[in-house]
């Protein structure tokens, strides 16, 4: 499994080296290889796409992707995701208990020791030890977790508390009682095979009044989806805010608007930064799913696929809703220092939706609050995926929420554009919303 992680790192390093070489080749003007020339052609074709809005969007993509913050940030997120996917699987792989055996243990007793593993979801491997001294050394070195010395006693490295529920502690308790019982039965004259059967009775069937809680995998996926949505919305919203403030505070806005319409600039910015956000989201989800499939994680099994798709849809919808709000917020600022104070109130609904949703995911039944939030556009990107994760929503309820969101996006876009158009060229201090009311002549 660790090879997968190493593989990802190698691919990232190789990509970086390739990029650096390409940059160097471009800088020195060395003759282009056919592949490079072809990518240039592709670049030129792309460069004509989308008119002025396309130009603005491509600049945003170029500048953002080039930035160190983005590259390091993406790398860190990818590593965290890779760790989150692989570590549980790797840990599960480690779940093997080595049991040292000193002296001879009859076949039925060995069978009892081995049978204790599956009951605890682990695998037991027997390790013959020549002597108690050797067994002690093996215990100290960690080669074995416990040692069964004949039918007399069990050796462990550290004393076990009654409250200890680790796999080793549980194994020690089971082996200790079943081996003791079995050898006692044999001593009492019962045949070893019968004793084995008596010491390991078939478990009673368990009947439940209610079905088991909903698919845990879907919930885990929903949690990852929530975190992803939260990180992407706040990160790219803040980028948009900072981008607008940068243009306004550096006054480059005047140069841009001498040839562009403000609406084109805004649309280009939203599309460009949105494309980067989507690219990053796709990369993260791609790596998570790819790694998950490679290491056999349960992340993509069962209903989780629906959950992944719904999370991605809500990331896109959430961005489409919040991007306008952030852009309008940015147009109110006059200096970079105002970014923080402007970003905070915009983050509040996101934070609220996120916290309520992430706490709701542990419950068996969705609360009324989360049901309501799932239909309110500012919180739906968080609450609706949780409802999907809990399996508490029908397809048409989902569609209604998406429909409401689409209507809200159109409304917010119009309102925010109006604010942006009025505020972006106003300098000399922070612009307050009431200054932009149409009744006042500006």
């Amino acid at each position, binding site marked *: 499994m660790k090879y997968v992680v190493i593989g990802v790192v190698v691919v990232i390093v190789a990509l970086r080296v390739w990029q650096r070489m390409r940059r160097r080749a471009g800088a020195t003007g060395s003759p282009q290889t056919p592949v490079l020339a072809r990518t240039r052609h592709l670049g030129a074709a792309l460069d004509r796409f989308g008119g002025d809005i396309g130009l603005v969007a491509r600049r945003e993509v170029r*500048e953002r992707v080039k930035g160190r913050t983005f590259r390091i940030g993406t790398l860190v997120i990818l590593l965290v995701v890779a760790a989150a996917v692989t570590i549980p699987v790797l840990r599960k792989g480690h779940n093997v208990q080595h049991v040292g055996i000193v002296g001879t243990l009859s076949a039925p007793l060995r069978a009892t020791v081995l049978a204790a593993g599956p009951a605890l979801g682990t695998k037991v491997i027997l390790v013959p030890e020549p002597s108690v001294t050797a067994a002690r050394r093996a215990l100290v070195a960690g080669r074995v977790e416990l040692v069964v010395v004949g039918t007399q006693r069990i050796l462990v490295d550290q004393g076990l508390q009654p409250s200890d529920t680790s796999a080793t502690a549980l194994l020690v308790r089971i082996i200790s009682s079943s081996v003791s019982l079995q050898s006692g039965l044999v001593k009492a004259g019962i045949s070893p095979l019968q004793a084995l059967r008596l010491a390991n009775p078939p478990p009673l069937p368990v009947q439940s009044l209610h079905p088991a809680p909903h698919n845990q995998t879907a919930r885990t996926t929903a949690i990852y989806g929530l975190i992803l949505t939260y990180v992407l919305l706040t990160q790219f919203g803040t980028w948009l805010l900072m981008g607008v403030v940068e243009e306004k505070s550096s006054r480059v806005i005047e140069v841009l608007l001498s040839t562009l319409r403000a609406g084109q600039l805004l649309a280009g910015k939203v599309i460009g930064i949105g494309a980067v956000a989507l690219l990053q989201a796709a990369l993260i989800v791609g790596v998570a799913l790819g790694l998950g499939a490679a290491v056999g994680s349960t992340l993509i099994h069962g209903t989780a696929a629906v959950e992944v798709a719904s999370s991605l849809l809500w990331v896109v919808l959430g961005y489409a809703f919040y991007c306008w709000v952030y852009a309008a917020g940015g147009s109110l600022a006059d200096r970079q220092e105002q970014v923080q104070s402007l970003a905070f109130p915009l983050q509040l609904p996101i934070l609220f939706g996120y916290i309520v949703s992430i706490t709701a995911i542990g419950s068996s039944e969705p609360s009324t609050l989360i049901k309501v939030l799932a239909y309110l556009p500012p919180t739906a990107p968080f609450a609706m995926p949780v409802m999907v994760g809990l399996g508490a929503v029908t397809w048409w309820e989902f569609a209604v929420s998406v429909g409401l969101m689409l209507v809200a996006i159109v409304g917010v876009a119009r309102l925010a554009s109006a604010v942006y158009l009025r505020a972006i060229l106003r300098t000399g201090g922070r612009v307050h919303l009431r200054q932009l009311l149409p009744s006042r002549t500006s």
Partner: protein
Amino acid sequence: MTLELDGLTRRFGDIVALDRLSFTVPTGQVFGFLGPNGSGKTTAMRAVFELVTLDAGAVRWKGVPLTSNDRRRFGYMPEERGLYPGMVVVEQIEYLARLHGVPHGDARAAALHWLEKLGVVDRASSKVEALSLGNQQRVQLAAALVHEPELLVLDEPLSGLDPVGVDAVSAVLVEQAGSGRGVLFSSHQIDLVEDLCESVAIIDQGRLVATGTVEELTTRGRRRLVVKVEGDWTGAWATVLPGVTISRVEGGAVRLVLDEDTDPQAVLAAAMKAGPVEQFGFERQRLSEVFRESLA
């Protein structure tokens, strides 16, 4: 082919930034837009690019109201400058060229051409924020020129430049005008740009004070003479002449303002009578004097 500002009016609350301002900028010459600080020059220039909404008035290009397509073929350098601080110089100019409609293949070459011409090509791959203010200003000018605009609108392009920079920028303005383009630039240092402009519009408090060629403006009105008589430091000889006013005496050079019907030959004769004449000639008014007189 002219730019026409017609009756531009703009109020900010109680402040009148532009008050029915009208003048015409012909192409093929350097046109100075002059006036003291806060007189409304920037507002008028921003109005050309619709960066400020007008209460009244219109801007016309070639006789018809300006469209966004026309503006795309203009070059603008705003007063407060404006470039992306973190963007590489040549990429920035290339991007602005593209926004002004320069084709993909030509934009980079055009950017490098103008950076070379303005002496900042060695900083082409630096970020804008790493450049000195003077160099940033050159880059800003390159941004206004990169798409070979039909009309240049430059707000205070000479402020903040050292003498070498002033000469370099002035040369570019003259060259652009020489190739038939319109060059409108503003300055609050009226006398400093007198030699650079062919025509000017002078404004104060949003109102037009004077407009015309520098030649017309500085030679119109009453004639001015400067006369120097050897050994004379006071100009007392001129005080008795009818129709002559002494405007000032400096180092023995007497500056005189003649009435309409005063004969300069009579002044010369009077000067010769006072002593050997070292200097005698007509003098043009300075633009700042034109400005002050117009206000009076």
